[in-house]
């Protein structure tokens, strides 16, 4: 039986059809003949039937030998041994009860993920607050979308990554891509850039000449290559030119925004020549780009992690929004601002209660009416719902500390690869009394766990995802899960039962979704009008989708989501000392992604075709810089700073600036780029600094060499 579902990886959620290869083969068995399902692309607005290399090979992992098929518990010798589900769950429940009794409910923490289905993400938040009674829950979306989310909420009163269907981009004449390498991270996306390319209007801002930047070659647009960490100043310069040259959409700004005067004052000091001296982008380019954007009838400004994963990421995203608002883009047909959500359910995952300050429906956990509504649906007293917890970095910083978290449950996250300053995170994990990891492979984080609970993969489960457009879609099973693996909904149900919780934890995804509808009703992310039957009918479902409505493909046509209906222009400025200036012998480390790998690589490094193409981390360095440092192509190097050292090979390329080095963050152990990244965070979003850390690169002299 073929199943129509969507890709397990990124937020584009390309549609695919999975057909079991041989119904006779018992599910989950290791079959040398190949994966148990075949993958075919399916027509859908985001991918139009196409898939990228990751999507095509996604089924490889279903029956891979590395798949976990029984719970693991660390034995007296310190090695992980298979056990039964009852034994594992009893152990976890016992330990949690003990830790809670001794240290209080907040001694138990939960770390979620942006890849979990809406149902799992929702139930995980409920589990933390009701079954565990802890406020200590946050998730890896803190590393992805938090800056853009904070900026969107501040400006628009709502955070839906793309407030319009992706296909709207097709007709654009100018698209400004800020810090996003879609050609590698979500390749089928680039089909939607063709219109702008044909109009010569694809503008890519990236310190690297990425595959996406190359899409601007041959007169199809412009690649702007600022020094890493200077995006905010570049945007302030663009805004300065738009204001100084009277390119502002005055009626729009007057009717639909507030804050114009303060914004105008704040950019008066960022004339293009001054911007040039900070960013390395010629003043003439700043002017030309501002004019191009203003002259375009159909223009879009889109941000990605490149500009958001900074200690000033919220302000940088805010500056991008300010630019779009001054040009009158948001809410005008054929133009707009958006942020490109990365993880598969990065959108839905940030709406339904995995965030430390949030309740389902994108409600604020501190808002008494929100608490009352959620408590009513959950059948509890509002007092029983804990208050706000700690954002990811603070949560991880508290591991094993006095009054900190002593037991951590991890779902859908490989946090010792994806967190900043991972050496510190590892030390925190070592201080824990209990680490429980739900995963389907032995990820670097699972390998450190006291208990590993094997869970299902995408092709084995039902649920919903919300893609980068805010479109709710169905995930459907194509085959039965392997014996020994369990749905996380079932695991939460069983643990809640063992912990004596009287709250409801359904194991059927559709039942969980029905509850999610009720809880989200009246919230910002209102799903109350959506059900499985509607989604199965093929109807498009963009939230907010209140009961009785037909959803909201396009936001902001008439008003923004603040009470007065106006968007906020928020004046922002670079903070002095936000990041240290590089000394002459330091390079700026930019971390990012490769086509072949997804996130921490826990999945894609186990797919032979993907691993063969990119088997290890390579530090990309400009040949001129390499010559100065005495490094030849393919030679082993050390990339180091006070936090740690990465050992890998060098790749010489003129695609990178001479003052920077690039490392993909998909690899573990001594190749983990996040050994070098700082856990300093944005003061508003708590986003860490992933994109501009200072390092020294040296040739690695191997032992025995040079004798």
């Amino acid at each position: 039986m073929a199943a129509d579902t969507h890709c397990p990886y990124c937020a584009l959620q390309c549609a695919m059809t999975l057909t079991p290869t041989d119904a006779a083969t018992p599910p989950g068995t290791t079959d040398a003949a190949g994966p148990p399902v075949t993958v075919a692309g399916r027509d859908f607005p985001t991918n139009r039937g196409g898939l990228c290399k990751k999507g095509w090979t996604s089924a490889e992992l279903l029956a891979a030998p590395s798949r976990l098929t029984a719970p693991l518990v660390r034995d007296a010798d310190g090695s992980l041994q298979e056990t039964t589900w009852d034994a594992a769950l009893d152990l976890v429940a016992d330990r949690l009860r003990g830790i809670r009794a001794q240290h209080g409910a907040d001694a138990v923490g939960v770390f979620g993920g942006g890849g979990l289905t809406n149902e799992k993400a929702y139930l995980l938040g409920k589990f933390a607050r009701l079954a565990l009674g802890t406020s200590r829950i946050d998730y890896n979306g803190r590393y992805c979308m938090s800056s853009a989310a904070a900026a969107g909420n501040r400006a628009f009163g709502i955070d839906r990554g793309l407030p319009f269907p992706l296909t709207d981009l097709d007709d654009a004449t100018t698209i400004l891509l800020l810090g996003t390498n879609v050609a590698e991270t979500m390749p089928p996306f680039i089909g939607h850039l063709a219109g702008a390319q044909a109009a010569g209007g694809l503008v890519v801002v990236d310190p690297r000449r990425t595959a996406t930047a190359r899409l601007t070659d041959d007169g199809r647009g412009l690649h702007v290559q600022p020094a890493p960490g200077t995006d905010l100043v570049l945007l302030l310069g663009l805004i300065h030119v738009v204001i100084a040259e009277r390119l502002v959409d005055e009626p729009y700004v007057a009717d639909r925004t507030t804050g114009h005067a303060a914004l105008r004052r704040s950019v008066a000091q960022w004339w293009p020549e001054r911007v040039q001296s900070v960013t390395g982008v010629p003043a003439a380019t700043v002017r030309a780009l501002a004019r191009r954007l203003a002259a375009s009838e159909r223009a879009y400004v889109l941000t990605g992690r490149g500009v958001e994963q900074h200690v000033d990421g919220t302000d940088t995203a805010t500056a991008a929004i300010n630019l779009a608002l001054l040009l009158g883009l948001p809410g005008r047909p054929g133009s707009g601002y958006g942020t490109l959500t990365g993880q598969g359910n990065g959108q839905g995952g940030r709406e339904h209660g995995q965030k430390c300050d949030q309740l389902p429906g994108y409600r604020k956990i501190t808002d008494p009416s929100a608490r009352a509504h959620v408590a009513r649906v959950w059948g509890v007293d509002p007092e029983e719902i804990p208050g706000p917890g700690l954002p990811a970095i603070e949560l991880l910083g508290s591991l094993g500390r006095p009054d900190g978290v002593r037991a951590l449950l991890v779902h859908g996250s490989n946090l010792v690869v994806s967190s900043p300053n991972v050496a510190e995170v590892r030390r925190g994990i070592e201080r824990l009394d209990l680490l429980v990891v739900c995963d389907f492979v032995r990820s670097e984080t699972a390998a450190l766990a006291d208990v590993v609970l094997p869970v299902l993969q995408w092709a084995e489960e039902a649920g919903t995802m919300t893609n980068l457009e805010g479109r709710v879609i169905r995930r459907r099973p194509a085959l039965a899960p392997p014996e020994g693996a369990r749905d996380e909904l079932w695991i939460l149900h069983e643990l809640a039962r063992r912990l004596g919780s009287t709250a409801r934890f359904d194991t059927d995804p559709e039942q969980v979704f029905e509850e999610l509808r009720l809880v989200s009703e009246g919230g910002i992310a209102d799903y109350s009008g959506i059900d499985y039957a509607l989604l199965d009918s093929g109807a498009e479902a963009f939230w907010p989708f209140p009961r009785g409505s037909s959803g909201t493909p396009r936001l902001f046509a008439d008003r923004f989501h603040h009470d007065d209906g106006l968007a906020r222009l928020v004046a922002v400025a670079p903070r002095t000392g936000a990041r240290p200036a590089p000394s002459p012998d330091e390079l700026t480390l930019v971390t990012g992604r490769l086509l072949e790998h997804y996130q921490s690589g826990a999945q894609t490094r186990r797919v032979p075709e993907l691993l063969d193409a990119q088997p290890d981390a390579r530090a990309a360095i400009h040949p001129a810089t390499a010559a100065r440092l005495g490094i030849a192509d393919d030679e082993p190097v050390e990339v180091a700073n006070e936090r740690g050292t990465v050992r890998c090979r060098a790749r010489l390329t003129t695609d990178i600036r001479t003052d920077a080095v690039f490392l993909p963050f998909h690899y573990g152990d001594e190749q983990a780029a996040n050994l070098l990244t700082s856990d300093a965070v944005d003061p508003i979003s708590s986003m860490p600094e992933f994109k501009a850390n200072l390092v020294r690169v040296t040739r690695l002299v191997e032992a025995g060499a040079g004798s």
Partner: protein
Amino acid sequence: MTPLRIVLIGYGPVGARFVEELLPAVRSGAVALTVVAGEPVEAYNRVLVAEYAVGNADLDAMLVGDRDTAEAAGAAVMLGVRATRIDRDARVVRLSTGEGLPYDRVVLATGSRANVPTLDGVDRPRRDLAALERHPATLVARDDELPAGVTALRDLDDARRVLDAVRGRRRIVVLGAGVLGLELALAAAHAGAQVCVVHHGPHPMPRNLDRGAGHVLRSAIRRTGITVIAHSRAEAIGFRTDDDGTRRFDMLVTADGKQVRGDLLVLSCGVSPRNELATLAGLRTATGVVVGPDLRSWSDPDVFAIGDCAQVVERTEETAGRRVLPGAPSGLIGPGWRQAEWLAAAFAAEATAPQEDGGHGPEGGLPEEREPIVMLKAEHVDVVAVGDVSADPWDDDALAPRRRVAQWADPEHLRYVKMVTEDGVLTGFASVGMPRTAAELTLLFERRAELPADRSLLLRFDGPDDDPSAGADAFAPDATVCWCNGVTVARIEDSAACGNTTVECVGRDTRAGTGCGGCRGRIADVLARAAASGAEEPDGAPSLA
């Protein structure tokens, strides 16, 4: 706790920044701030006055001050009120309104005024102590009256005079070829005025550029339609009498007898700090008000100066004894802003945590400023320079054995770069007509980074070969065709060799074209090329072209 009373004299961009930074302390009640603004308008960014003068910017877009917020925080902002005297004995600032403002600290941010050169036909009053004491009403906090048709370009009134001429497409004579003069000349010419630049040096921007850069710049300016008259010292002004009886500018007469006729003469001969309050108060002045690295006057621990009027000189036994002091105010906004931030922070710290000994003001001092980078703000002429660029590649200077010079000159195409390094680190450069190169050099200079051994790498940023692969062979074996699936030309050719001769077949075999589909045309090209070469070389043997 009584608040620290601070009086700020001057409300330009540096003064406005000082106010902004001090507001938290004002709001908390630790500081009582009064701003004596002088000009009757909100603080604006003077860097943009030339843009305003040619109609490229509105006043709105230039405003940096926020009087409403400052007043809401509790500061008093007195627009259009001038300070006429600092009475240091009484510790009171006297105002043009007759009032007096008692202070604990007074900060001079009076900026600078345009220099008026010695020209027959233009009065040029001195501002020494004797003159100031005789004519305080006309000389203190006031600029000189210039004849009709003659203007500097410093404030909004000046800019409006220029704007009238630009709008009327009249003939504008710019005296001086420094950065500000050239910016105005280029902007005015761009806006349609007829412009002539007269200067006495051998080439424009002589303080910043070497001969090569200067000559390339002159060619670039001339190509915009501006007349440039070099080697000409201005001597006198000729007047004509309008129908309404006003005597106004008619021509500039140079020492060698040239008569340059025009409707408006713009003086762009540099600026001088507005020192007169300090002079009258008996404070040490040189070019500007002399302050230490802590921005405190050498003569009075309660008086400070920031921005264009401040001359920072560290007081040592050696400097204290000198009659002529080194340095001068930079005249640039960046250092002024940093001074404003630093001093505001120091005052805030002092006011919120008073020292036990009742000591005076900030400790320590600002780090020394790096030599400022000069950039010409102009639409079609790109000039960036910093440092001493007078050395030539062939110089053999025993005094600078580690200095090296690299140079690229292409006057025909208006491109020029000179890079001066010491031990590989940039100490100065001049760039004309090479914007990307200049931008990269700017960053390298700021970071004191070593230049690549192959200096020509920096030139190539502005060349068509900037991206080595852009012009490269799109059919090179390792060129990527399908980004979604990472499929190269070689992989498609291999597939074709195995009999996959259509885009669909190749897609099934390699997945090329099965993502966004944008590369299907290129796959067809690769296949067509493979088919053609296959036909020519049936045995597949490599051929020598």
